[in-house]
């Protein structure tokens, strides 16, 4: 296969991934059934993992699949199943409020696109080319050591806090 055809194929696959991401994001926000929202979120997160592949990092794409699609989505599904009739209520929002929310997000999108399309981006002068996982591990254990430890502490506190929050209220209400 000649290189031009490969390039075209990769470009087409890129836009398919982008389309999957936005389809998943729309499903995650617009339907009123919460289970469809979670499935759409999983689709959007898998699409973002594909974008990470195009951005040159296989490792982060795998982490995205493992942490987001594997852990966070499953825990949301689990919480939905634990608390019973979630699909019953949530009345329809009035139209003015939906219109105001839509206006706010459109204003944000237009502002962001305006800012970064008028900015002249300058790449750094000497750019390192070391994309290996070993380099990431080295940086995590030397330069970003403190942040790494603090993240572990935050995760520990979050786990204990989640147990306490969910456990105490059960004792109070029963």
């Amino acid at each position, binding site marked *: 296969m000649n290189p031009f055809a490969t390039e075209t194929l990769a470009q087409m696959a890129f836009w398919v991934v982008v389309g999957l991401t936005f389809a998943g994001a729309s499903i995650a*926000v617009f339907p009123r059934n919460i289970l469809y929202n979670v499935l759409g979120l999983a689709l959007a997160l898998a699409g973002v993992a594909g974008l990470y592949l195009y951005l040159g990092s296989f490792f982060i794409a795998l982490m995205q699949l493992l942490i987001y699609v594997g852990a966070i989505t499953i825990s949301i599904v689990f919480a939905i199943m634990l608390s019973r009739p979630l699909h019953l209520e949530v009345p329809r929002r009035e139209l003015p409020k939906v219109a105001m929310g839509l206006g706010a997000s459109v204003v944000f999108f237009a502002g962001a696109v305006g800012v970064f399309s008028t900015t002249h981006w300058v790449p750094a002068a000497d750019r390192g*080319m070391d994309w290996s996982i070993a380099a990431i591990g080295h940086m995590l254990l030397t330069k970003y050591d403190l942040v790494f430890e603090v993240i572990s502490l935050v995760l520990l506190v*979050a786990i204990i806090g989640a147990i306490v929050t969910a456990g105490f209220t059960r004792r109070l209400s029963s």
Partner: protein
Amino acid sequence: MNSLNVYLTIGAALFSIGLLGVLQRRNLIGMLIAVELMLNGANVNFMAFNRFLAPDPTVGQIITLFVMGLAAAEAAIGLSIILALFRRLHSINIERAQQLRG
């Protein structure tokens, strides 16, 4: 192959969809899902800057990993708060959660 602006537009669009979800939904789990979308938009931006501009390609990947860890912590805490609120109010509509008094 694609330019930086393509990825920045994708990130901004993901963030905007998430923002719309947070503003428009009244379902707490729906709002949590929308917040995850916003975090992913920011992550796409980090990875794009890392790919096209940054002096050292490990930095953006490490920041993205940290954001993922914080998102996991946030999801755990948020879901436990939602469970506690559901047990108390028998509803996850956020407009019912108006009283601070226990």
